[in-house]
């Protein structure tokens, strides 16, 4: 695995709004930059550093990131307003949160922008995946079409009531796991809020004891 961090210079190529609380940006990919799906980079700007999981796959021509907009956040605010063509630095890749195929079924669990590494993993060939995505509202179900086509089961878990026209689970991801996932052994991949990671981990200890857990705390 490539975990030897290099320092790279890059250019902001593209930005689009994903929801009120998130944007997607595309950065120029340096020719020598290689990574594995699930790894992250550390963006550096004016002495502020933030880690972001990569949404794109290694073969893509650019580096795509899904950025949660933090009120007063030094880097997310900059990325949200910087002119296209602005220069940034980053280090990476880093992290071991990669897909590890096994005989156990894999369950990906994300909250908010925590779906970023799962998008990359599914696009790079991870199969047989159940994916739960916990958000407040349907507008935050980022990369839904990719997940609908690549996962064997994609379950949006909405904490606020959603439109009746769409299939979703009303409640938190832990609620779905508690009531809908059959007891057994799984490989759980958790990415997102620390509270979700804590709650799912403790639930796994109780209901899915013996399962494996790989986690990446986002915020």
């Amino acid at each position, binding site marked *: *695995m490539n*975990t030897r961090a290099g320092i790279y210079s890059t250019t902001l190529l593209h930005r689009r709004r994903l929801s009120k609380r998130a944007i997607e940006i595309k950065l120029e990919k340096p020719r020598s930059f290689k990574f594995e799906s699930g790894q992250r980079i550390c963006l550096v700007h004016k002495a502020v550093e933030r880690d972001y999981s990569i949404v794109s796959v290694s073969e893509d021509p650019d580096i795509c990131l899904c950025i949660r907009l933090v009120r007063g956040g030094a880097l997310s605010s900059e990325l949200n307003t910087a002119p296209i063509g602005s220069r940034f630095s980053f280090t990476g890749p880093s992290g*071991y949160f990669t897909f*590890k*195929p*096994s005989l156990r079924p894999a369950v990906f669990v994300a909250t908010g922008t925590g779906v970023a590494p799962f998008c990359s993993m599914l696009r790079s060939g991870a199969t047989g995946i159940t994916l739960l995505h916990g958000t407040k509202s349907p507008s935050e179900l980022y990369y839904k079409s990719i997940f609908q086509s690549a996962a064997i089961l994609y379950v949006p878990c909405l904490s606020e009531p959603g439109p009746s026209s769409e299939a979703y689970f009303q409640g938190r991801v832990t609620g779905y796991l508690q009531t809908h996932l059959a007891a057994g052994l799984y*490989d759980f991949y958790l990415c997102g809020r*620390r509270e979700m*990671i*804590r709650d799912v*981990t*403790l639930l*796994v*200890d109780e209901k899915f*004891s013996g*399962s*494996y*857990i*790989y*986690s990446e*705390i986002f*915020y």
Partner: protein
Amino acid sequence: MTIYTGTGDRGKTSLFSGQRVSKANARIEALGNLDELNSTIGGLIAALSPKCPDLINEMLEIQSDLFSISALMATTPDSPSMDTIESITQVQIETLENAIDRMENELPELKCFVLPGGHITAAWSHLARTVCRRSERQLVRFLDTLFSEQVSERYQKALIYINRLSDYLFVVARYCNRILGVPEQYWKC
């Protein structure tokens, strides 16, 4: 971002390879000993004068090697995560042996037991040596629980490294007393 996750509040913790295990697990005990060893070497580095940059750099490498051994201990033998672990190599073991030989060449031959202590750096090094020996004992106890086919060369190299590191720390203690002008004290000599 805060460091606490709360996932260990009920006495379990996660291995690097994904399993949840009791914090009383032999593997976690081994990891705790390695952590204590690494921290004690940190104490030794802090006590060393900046005038010993070679020794300090050598020990920073050792601290890094101990992280590799800890990662190995946090990974079950047949898990896919094992592929991402950097093994201890013969080169790292020989680096320790060469350092031992280099320092021993500057030391008087030892004819009786030396009392642990002397200069503060020597005292730290002796303390680190004893924690290293405890780490080794726990590592052996843990390896005894594995099936023989699971005790791969990775573990054997780690075990050799820890054994050699104890010798290294003993020699470092003597070397520190020597270069800092503190006479060694002997037992019934």
